[in-house]
């Protein structure tokens, strides 16, 4: 198993870059199972949240709001009331509502600028994913940052909207790019849903930065926290480039998706995948999932769904590829996902080397100064 301290020795390169087999890298020998993961195809997600509930039921995760005083309150973020991945939400369904000019070829919109696929957003987003009232990371942050409230409070939706008829021209023209200038019936609504989860990165920053060894790489290539070892130091929290892992106030421990480690050992698929009615969440051997995803992407592109793309599929990305990857229908930022995640340990070897060189230099300087002093 690699951690930051190994890096000092320079013996391992497994903190960054392509790594076909993280379990092997972690010391599992030849008899281990194949690396497993999730392929979440958001194009068939219906936002039922069965994954969230099944996950909590199986893993005995408490109510999301158990730590909060405002339990059972609407967040105002479309149909999302659990807000974000966290210590008590290991699967989270994001709901992204926005509006686009009418894609139909009606006379009223014929002169409006639009791309061939009619999906380019030329009016501002109506952010359904408003910032969480309880603070914390903003899921599904609006693409156009100008629509986010400066104080992190509630967005005044009405200010973003057009007035009816003639008054609309004056009232909203001043809002520039995100002023809605299309009358209500000429805008298409889009409602994206996506079930997010721990990515079980090839290079897992949380694991590599864990000082107690509570986080470990399993024989399935997944990343799991051991509750009885975790001391709640929280080093893992800023180490995750996706903002997944978090510390739960009630028990002080860090928690996240285990990919149902206890079920895998019994030959069962994870609870969320089992509960997903539309097969949006697919579980399996990672190489097979990748082949499935590639075929699905080609199929969608073949049907003209040009905006479809895979996220976390690329083993060359900043985390060495994800064990849980996605098919998205827009850019990752729209879903609140970082466009170019980089494992926080990428620069560690260099940093340690620099630190070592500095230390060496300082040592030499100190010796030199004594040398000179003795002179």
């Amino acid at each position, binding site marked *: 198993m690699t951690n930051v301290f190994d890096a000092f020795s320079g013996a391992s390169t497994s903190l960054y870059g392509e790594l076909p087999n993280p379990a092997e890298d972690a010391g599992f020998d030849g008899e281990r199972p194949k690396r497993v993961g999730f392929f979440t195809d958001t*194009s*068939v*997600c*219906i*936002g*039922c*949240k*069965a994954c*969230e*509930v099944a996950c*909590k*039921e199986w893993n005995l995760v*408490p*109510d*999301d*709001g158990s730590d909060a005083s405002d*339990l*059972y*309150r*609407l967040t*105002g973020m*479309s*149909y999302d*009331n*659990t807000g974000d991945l966290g210590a008590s939400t290991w699967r989270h369904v994001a709901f992204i*509502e*926005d*509006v686009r000019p009418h894609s*139909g070829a*009606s006379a009223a919109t014929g002169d409006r600028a639009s791309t061939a696929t009619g999906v380019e957003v030329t009016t501002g987003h*109506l952010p*359904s994913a408003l910032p969480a009232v309880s603070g914390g990371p903003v899921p599904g942050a609006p693409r156009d940052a100008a629509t986010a409230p400066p104080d992190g409070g*509630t*967005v*005044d*939706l*009405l200010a973003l*909207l057009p*007035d*009816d008829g003639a008054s609309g021209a004056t009232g909203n023209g001043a809002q520039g790019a995100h002023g809605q200038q299309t009358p*209500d*019936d000429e*805008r298409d*609504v*889009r*409602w*994206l*849903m996506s079930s997010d989860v721990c990515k079980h990165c090839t290079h897992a920053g949380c694991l590599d930065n864990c000082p107690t060894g509570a986080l470990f790489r399993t024989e399935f290539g997944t990343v799991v926290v051991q509750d009885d070892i975790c001391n709640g130091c929280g080093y893992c929290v800023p180490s995750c480039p996706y903002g997944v892992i978090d510390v739960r106030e009630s028990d002080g421990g860090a928690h996240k998706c285990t990919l149902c480690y206890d079920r895998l050992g019994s030959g069962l698929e994870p609870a969320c995948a089992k509960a997903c*009615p*539309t*097969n949006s969440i697919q579980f399996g051997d990672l190489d097979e999932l990748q082949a499935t995803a590639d075929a699905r992407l080609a199929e969608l592109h073949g049907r003209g769904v040009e905006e479809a793309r895979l996220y976390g599929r690329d083993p060359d990305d900043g985390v060495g590829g994800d064990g849980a990857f996605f098919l998205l229908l827009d850019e990752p930022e729209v879903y609140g996902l970082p466009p170019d995640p980089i494992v926080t340990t990428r620069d560690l070897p260099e940093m340690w080397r620099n630190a070592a060189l500095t230390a060496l230099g300082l040592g030499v300087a100190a010796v030199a100064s004594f040398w000179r002093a003795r002179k």
Partner: protein
Amino acid sequence: MHSDCIVIEGSNMAEAHPVGFQWVMEAKRRGATVIHVDPRFTRTTAVADEHVPFRGGADIAFLGGLISYVLENELDFRDYVTAFTNAADIVDDDFTDSGDVDGLFSGYDPDTGHYDPASWALDGAYRAPAAGKRDAWESQMPDGPRPGADPMGHHEPRRDETLTHPRCVFQVLRRHYARYTPEAVARVCGMSVEQFLQVARSVTENSGRDRTTAWVYSVGWTHHTVGVQYIRAAAILQTLLGNMGRPGGGILALRGHASIQGSTDIPTLFDLLPGYLPMPSAHHETLADYIDADAAKTGFWGDMDAYTVSLLKAWWGDAATPENDFAFDWMPRITGDHGSYVTVKNQIDRKSFGYFLVGENPAVGHANGKMQRLGLANLEWLVVRDMQMIESASFWQNGPEIETGELRTEEIGTEVFFLPCANHTEKSGSFTQTQRLVQWRHEAVHPPGDSRSELHFYFHLGKRIREKLAGSTDERDRPLLELTWDYPTSGIHEEPDVVSVLAEINGADADGRPLSTYTELRADGSTTAGCWIYTGIFADGVNQADRRKPGSEQDLVAHEWGWAWPANRRVLYNRASADAEGRPWSERKKLVWWDEEQGRWVGHDVPDFEATKPPDYKPDPGATGPDALAGTDAFNMQSDGKAWLYAPSGLADGPLPTHYEPVESPVANLLHDQQDNPAREEMNRAWNRLNPSQSEVFPYVFLTYRLTEHHTAGGMSRTLGYLSELQPEFFCEVSPALARERGLEHMGWATLISARTAIEARVMVTERMKPLRIGDRTVHQIGLPYHWGSNGLSVGDPANDLLGVVMDPNVHIQESKVATCDIQPGRRPRGPALLEYVADYRRRAGVEPGGIQ
């Protein structure tokens, strides 16, 4: 899954039926076009290829427009239509169409608000309906059967196979819908002409020999004063397009709850016996009277005597003999509408004193919650069997009427018995789903504490009542004492053996051997069957519903997964999947066909036809029952074996669907003079006032519906943390334009007001709600999920309190999908001030005043 196009209309399938929706997504993966026609942009819309936003309550206008589009452009599947429908039948010249005069059909009596259907008949023949008002001919007409209309139904109506006779059904249909042009439809529905034409093209291009389109609906269609006619309209369209009885076609009625299908098959409905046998009426003196009145003499309902006698034998065993008319006299009788709302009215009027609530929370889940709670408060006793303390059991303590002072706890005399019950994982039994597929489930854990299964409750209740009556010589006690009530039990709680109930439902022959199919049933008392359509579910003494061979190990029909009624047939009327000569319409859509060499019907599915009746079979004159049907009469439950484009009998509100506005509508009927369904059922009482149509005091439309995260009236979801956190508060969905018009703030409070009451909800401003342009005005629709009440972790006002009760005349279902209201920012008044607030609205709207009587 085998559909090329799926139109979801009147249903939010992804949210309300997510598990069944997997097959829509599978069809989409295989290339099907999914169209969602709905007032709201929902999670179903989000994954559909096309969304057609429109005004709730305008479905018949939309479907009528599609019918007209098909007929005017001659896009009907003509070979199918001439082979399998009544398009060629000539309608009697007494009939006048609603299109001809002010929106009313001939036969309407404005004094009673009822139709006399005599003039709707076909020329030369009476056609007994297969469902609906079967004995209307007898009971609704004081003089009995009409002269010239032979109730034996032997006379063939005059027909014109060229479909050109001006009074043939095909031409009547064409004229009836002629005014439903794309432009007119677009105006009524609030959609663009192009949106309408796009659907019309998708549907017609995906229908025919080689392709099929399926239509999906749920309570978005049934909960209207013209709900039955909505479904009739879809049936006409799908029949014209040749989409019935074929793989990937059909009209899918999604049921609202696990095994609601089962609870109509073996019904909890007042007017049905198991297997859709009608409940006997008080005027049916003898079994023969009942059969004569209700059974068609031709088609498979011609064997209704065998189904009925077998049911009587299943219930009363050896005590049912030919000498005592198989104990028909012991069967309860109905005298009119004994539906839920009439029962509640009778409770309020102190004519009905006791009530069982089982899996039902009417204080939250039914229309006009105040009416429901007043009914409960006027009972002598109330039994509530539930897993949680629901609002219908605690109304006397914390109901809204306690807060307003309309009811006082100390004055409510209702004695409430709350009994804990087992949930579906805590008992064995069956679920029958939308597609008539019966699937068995096993008890996973024992029910906790004193919770018991329903079977346990009713079996032991029956046992105790029989013990109390034992020895009685009173004739009225005999039906209870003679019942076959001897199911074996096991365990310390004496749980009845549920499989023995299944065996009784299946039925047996004189030697007690399980029957294999309903055609083995006899009217001579030698067979039993608790529900004739389920006969075969226990064939060979094996629980066929418990089969779980994976689909991946079977062919496309997967007959060895569970069991579907009737006869494990997966597509009803599948004879229509082959042409008149019995050949598949196309290779791609072949399902069942005539094999000349074997001399029988064969195929992937169990043929829905007598196995050896050839396609060219012609019945003898005077033949009865199934023998009277020809080799092309695919719709064999119908007395004429035909799909009815025109329904000459069986309906209370006309032979053809006509667009009527909802009773509470913001706009005038743009298609007909008649504003709303003239035959609707109303209850004009102080606790059930209706908003006037087109009222400026109640200018907005509201729609009620469910969310995925909650279960109907909330007893099974608002009490659980994992579900409550997902949709924690009652909210209303409004468009940005309406928010601006009324000054509503996102996540602020709003008060919604109708002539019934005022409720409050958090505001969700969303672009998914769109204002519509209807005629010359803008119509705003407000969305209200109806799950909330006062009990549980997540609480809120019940949306259904806003609704009044006005009903469809065929099935007595309320119009709860569309009504009108006002909306204002801020919270509602508390206590008695709420009553004054609503009274003020009533005064301004010209609604009759009145509180609790």
